[in-house]
Structure formats: structure tokens, C-alpha cells
């Protein structure tokens, strides 16, 4: 978002994310608003923002592996489960602090994610996507059949604590979740601009050409999987301590499909796109879920079940309409808007 007439004279200016004073002003204003939100937001909206932030972290990871590196992954829900379980075991059974368990669960999920990325040496495209679905099912089968994960009963991780202060409510854990989300966004935004990120883009655009250019294909693909699963693991850990229940039936393939959906709705290869996608699809999902009881209460002759079924259809139909008119995602629209803003008041 640069207004007309901003010219870059130095390299550092070209690279700056926050280029002009107004950007700084907007950022600080937004941060203050974000951190003061629990003071005036209602309970439901705080928890909604929590779930949005966790969704954003997951989809950021997906954006790196799929949007930037071009390796479609359906394993995100399973790796989120790995993170959630690791965190729950470390805090609940080992007695580690949540703040230690959080990065560890990210790393564990990342390491297991390397296993998910391993087939990418040989498999490409949808075959790889299906391999990640396979990994999803294998992980989700293993979890309820191991002793350490509490079998099918799940685990109850405790709320995070600093000293005697417990983050046991939505308003309190909001600060942790939002902070982690901001850090992860900052990390992702910068990582895609480094050598690694550019290598990812090269692999996505043409992996053979990238290899010829001297990019070690396998290493970078694995790295992309590691980073993406790290993000999923972090999100899983946050989710576990926010909901305070980890259960094998929480992480389904439908979630993984939804994350891919968020990525595409937002637009591949764009960090703001992640925000658009998550917010659009999550709010759509919430909207149709709550429209059904409302509909049933206004028009009692419809009945609760038909209203609920219709809401499922509406979700699909809205997505269909969206894809017909915006198949390149909201980020595409955002780019167009940015360019026209940059040119304003000139037309070309």
C-alpha cells in the first residue's frame, strides 16, 4: 500500500515492509487495537479471534509449503494433532512449562513432518497431495492406538502459567495466541524474502529449472515441509491449551480440506492472502452454522434439521460462487487494489 509518488532510492527502502510513516502509524494503531480488544470485545468475539489466529498460523504454514514451495499438503490437521498431543503430554505428564512445550511441540511436529515430506523426493503434484492424505490417516490412526496419548479418551492439558498467573480464560490466553500469531506472521513474511523463500518460489515455478540453478531440491522441499509442520505444531499446541482437551476425533480430514480451501480462497503465494482466506472461510462457516437456528426460530415450519442441512449447502454454494468469480483468490484482488491505489489519481 504505497501512495503515489513514493520512490525507492536505496535498497533498504525497496526491501522495507513499512515504507512510510503512515504505515508505522497504521501498524501501531492496529497493534494497540488488537491488544486492547479483550477490554471491549464480547466473550464470543474474543474466542472467535482466538480461533482465527490459530487458523492463520496453520494456513501460514500451508502457504509456505503449498503457496510458495508448490507442494500441496493435506496433512496440516494431522500435524496440528501431533503438536497438540506433544504439548499436552509435555505439560500434563512431564510437567514442563507451556512456554517450553510450545516450541518443542512445533519442532516435534516439524520432525514428524519431515516424514510427510519424504515422499516429495519422488512424488509430485496430486500424487504428493494424496500421499499427505495417507499420512494424515496413518497419524490419526496411530494416535488413538498409543498408550502415551491416552488412547481414544484423549488428554486434558492444563492452562498455561507464569508464576501464579494462569491463562485459564479466553481473554487471558488471547494475549498468548495473538502474540504468537504476530511473531509467526512476522517470521513467515520475512522468511519468504530470504534466500530460502526465493528458493521455494523457484521450486514452485519449475522444479527442474530450480535444480539446474543449483537449488538442492530435496533439501529445500524437506525444509518447506519442516517449516509448515512447525507452524501446524505451534498452532496445535495453542489449540490444545486453549480448548484444554485433546481428543483424536478433533482433527479430521475435513479440517485439512478446509485449510487448503482457506489458502485458495485467500490466494496462493501471498501472506495477506492467508488472513483474507482464513477470515473469509471461518466467518462463512460460523455464519451458516448460526444462521440455521436463527432461520428455524424465525420460520418454525422449516424445522431445525432442514435448516442445518441447508446451511451446509449454502457453505458449498457460496464457495462455488466465490471460486467462479475469484478463482485466483482474494490476494489477487488485493494486488489489483494496491496497484490502483499506487497509481491514484492517474489511470495508468
Amino acid at each position: 500500500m504505497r501512495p503515489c509518488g513514493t520512490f525507492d532510492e536505496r535498497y533498504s527502502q525497496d526491501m522495507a515492509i513499512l515504507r512510510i510513516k503512515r504505515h508505522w502509524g497504521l501498524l501501531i494503531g492496529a497493534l494497540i487495537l488488537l491488544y486492547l480488544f479483550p477490554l471491549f470485545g464480547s466473550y464470543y468475539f474474543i474466542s472467535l479471534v482466538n480461533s482465527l489466529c490459530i487458523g492463520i498460523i496453520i494456513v501460514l504454514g500451508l502457504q509456505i509449503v503449498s503457496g510458495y514451495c508448490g507442494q500441496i499438503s493435506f496433512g496440516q490437521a494431522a500435524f496440528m494433532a501431533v503438536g497438540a498431543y506433544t504439548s499436552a503430554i509435555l505439560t500434563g505428564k512431564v510437567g514442563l512449562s507451556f512456554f517450553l512445550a510450545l516450541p518443542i511441540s512445533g519442532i516435534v511436529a516439524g520432525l514428524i513432518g519431515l516424514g510427510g515430506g519424504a515422499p516429495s523426493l519422488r512424488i509430485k503434484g496430486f500424487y504428493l497431495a494424496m500421499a499427505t492424505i495417507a499420512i494424515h490417516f496413518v497419524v490419526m490412526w496411530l494416535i488413538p492406538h498409543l498408550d502415551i496419548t491416552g488412547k481414544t479418551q484423549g488428554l486434558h492439558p492444563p492452562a498455561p502459567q507464569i508464576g501464579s498467573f494462569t491463562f485459564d480464560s479466553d481473554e487471558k490466553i488471547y494475549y498468548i495466541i495473538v502474540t504468537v500469531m504476530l511473531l509467526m506472521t512476522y517470521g513467515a513474511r520475512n522468511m519468504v524474502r530470504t534466500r530460502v523463500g526465493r528458493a521455494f518460489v523457484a521450486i514452485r515455478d519449475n522444479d527442474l529449472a530450480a535444480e539446474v540453478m543449483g537449488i538442492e531440491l530435496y533439501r529445500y522441499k524437506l525444509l518447506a515441509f519442516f517449516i509448515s509442520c512447525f507452524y501446524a505444531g505451534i498452532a496445535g499446541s495453542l489449540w490444545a491449551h486453549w480448548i484444554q482437551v485433546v481428543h483424536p476425533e478433533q482433527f479430521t480430514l475435513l479440517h485439512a480440506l478446509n485449510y487448503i480451501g482457506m489458502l485458495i480462497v485467500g490466494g496462493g503465494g501471498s501472506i495477506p492472502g492467508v488472513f483474507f482466506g482464513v477470515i473469509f472461510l471461518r466467518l462463512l462457516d460460523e455464519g451458516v452454522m448460526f444462521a440455521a437456528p436463527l432461520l428455524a426460530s424465525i420460520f418454525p415450519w422449516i424445522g431445525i434439521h432442514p435448516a442445518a442441512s441447508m446451511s451446509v449447502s449454502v457453505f458449498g454454494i457460496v464457495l462455488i460462487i466465490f471460486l467462479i468469480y475469484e478463482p485466483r483468490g482474494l490476494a489477487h484482488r488485493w494486488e489489483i487494489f494496491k496497484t490502483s491505489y499506487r497509481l491514484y489519481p492517474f489511470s495508468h
Partner: protein
Amino acid sequence: MRKILCGVLIFTFLFVTGVLQSNAQKEVTYLSLADYTAAIAGLNVPGDMGTEDYFKELNAKGGVDGVKVKFIGVDTRYDVARGVSAYKRYRAEPKLLVANAIGTPIGKAVGPLATKDKIVQLVPGDGEFQANLGRIFVWGPTYQDAFAATVDWLLADWKKKGKTGMPKLGFISWDSAYGKEPLRGGKEYAEKRGVTLAPPEFFPPGTMDHTVYLSRLAKAEVNYIFVGGVDPTPTNVIRDAHKLGLTKTIQFFCDYWGPTSLGVRLHPEALEGTVIVSYYLRGDDARKHPLSNLWVKYGHGKLEDMNEVYTIGMLWAMTFEAGLKIALKEVGYKKLDGEAMYQAYQKLTGLERAGLQGPCAYSPTSRRGSWEVRFYQVRAGKVTSISDWIKAPDAVSLHKF
């Protein structure tokens, strides 16, 4: 200009009357976090129809001492994230007193939240909530109790058939927390009574064909098989058993969510002889009940198409009505909250619910909706009662949770 002014005036008038009306009306909220479109829709859809209709009937009669009940049913699609989100969305509803979390994982996830908000929560039948007393109440006897009652029944049956030695029991259900629940305590009970349990079989929900598991149970030479899962799963399992010819030699049992009379109508010859343990009335018993007329009254179709689970919905509503009555008497409408309702629910011991279920067993030390179960058998394509109300043995206390 005048048109706009008129429009604004009308709108303001409507708004004001709306606000006044909503203030004038005394209302409490009953929230159902149900799955209408996924794995256990067969149980949830008719169940919540029953609740909704009973509340409609109640409100039409003027409510409980002038207090109307508002019913909210949200579709969670058997998804924990949606369930939690829905709970958080509706938790601020005026006077939300009871949240019915249908589905084992959702019950577990919403449990801590409801406890913190001091709201009464209902769950289907997990014995865990009887073992660890809290604000979570079970609909009827726990799954374990039903399993234990079945063990008693089969021992009597074994003796009646004049066979010697001890019978062997097989267990087959979903590979999930719900599927494994009956064995937590049920297994100990079977051991206590000397019934050998073959290694239990668990299959993923949505399996097409169950012959593999059934033939393995058959190979273990079981005499009885207890089938878990929410209908239509048990119907399909027994249908596959029938295909293998097992129904001739092995007696099949189903628990509460076993084949309803609608399921029996689909596969009458396969289900013939299946014994269903139930804490609510089934088959013609349920249809003959005067309250079942609500099914016709609210336009769900003919009485013979009624799903018996409809009556469970009315049972939740009846229990709620009784609890509300006590709570209103004790603290009045103004001070009415989840805590008062929780106290009231504990005083419901012995409540009779029009004979649809055994007397209520909620008390400060019990979270069971009732103790009594009843055995039904599929005979000539009809679900027929074969026993009176029987007190189920306590199997929860046998297991360490």
C-alpha cells in the same frame, strides 16, 4: 421525504415493541449442541425434534409458572471446533441453564467450559461423569450399566436354555471413545460374573462391510455379541452377520442407540431375534404413549413413522421442566442461573416422566438419569418388549477412571 420518515417511524416502533416484548417475556434457554448432518444424525435429529416439540407444547400452555423456554439447536457436524464455537456463541444467551452436548468428543470439550460457567451439561452415557461428579449429567443409565445389565440377562438366558459352562461374549463397536466406553467397567463386570469376553473388535465409523470382524468373533466361538455404534451402524453390522449366517447361532445385543423400529423395517429378517437394551420405551410401547401424539401434531408425519428416539428428546425436555420448576420455586426468576438449576437437578431424585423412562436418579451423588433398563427383542419385524423395567447393576464403580 415523508415516506422515509414513515419508514423510520414504523421501524422504530417495531424495534421498541420488539425490545419491550423481549423484556416483558420471562424466558430461559436450553441449548442443544447436536450433530444433524453427520455420524450420529440418526439419533440427534429425531431427538431434538422431540425436545423442540415438547417445549413448543409447554410454551403454548404458558410455560413453567409463566416462564417460557427457548430452544436453540446448533448443528456441530460431530466436529469439536464447531461445538466449542457454538457453545461460546450461545453461552451469553439470557438465562442459559442447560447445554446438551450430544457426541462424546464434544461433551468432553464443552465440559470444562460449562463447568466454569456453572451451567448444567447433559451427555449421552459416559460413565466417566458418574465417576467424577460434576455439573455434567447423563441422560439415563451409563453405557457401562447397560452392558452389565446385558451380561446379567445373557446369564439368565444361558441358564434358561439349559446349557452348562459359561457363555462367551463378543463385543464390536466403533473405534472411538464412544465405542470403547461400555467396556470401561463393563469388562470388569463381565469378569466378576464369570463371563469370558472375546477380544473386542473395533472398526472405523463408516465402514462398508463388517464381515471380517464378525467372522473373527465367530471364530472365537462366542455365544453372544454386543453391538455398539449409533443406528444405522448396528443394523448394518447385524445385517452382515445375517449374511454370514451368524444370527442363527449367536444371540445379538444392541445398546440404546441400536436399531429403532425404522431400522428394523429396513432389514426385518436380519434383525429378527436381536435383543436391544434400552432405558426408554421402544417400538409400539413408545407409539402407544399419549405423548407420542406430538409427533403427528407438529406435522412430522404418520405415527408409525415415528422414531422412538423422539421420546428421548421429550425426556430431556421433561427433566428440564421439572428442574426449572424447582429452581423457580427456590430462587425465583430474577436470581435464576445455572447454579440454581444445578442444585435443582440434584433434587430430581425419583421424578417420574410419564413412564417413558424409569424414575429419575439424579442426586448429589448420582449423575445417572435413571437406573432402569428394559429389554426389547425384534420379533416378526417388530420391536417387542420382553421384560419389565430392571434395575441395571452399577458397573461404573468397578472401573478406575
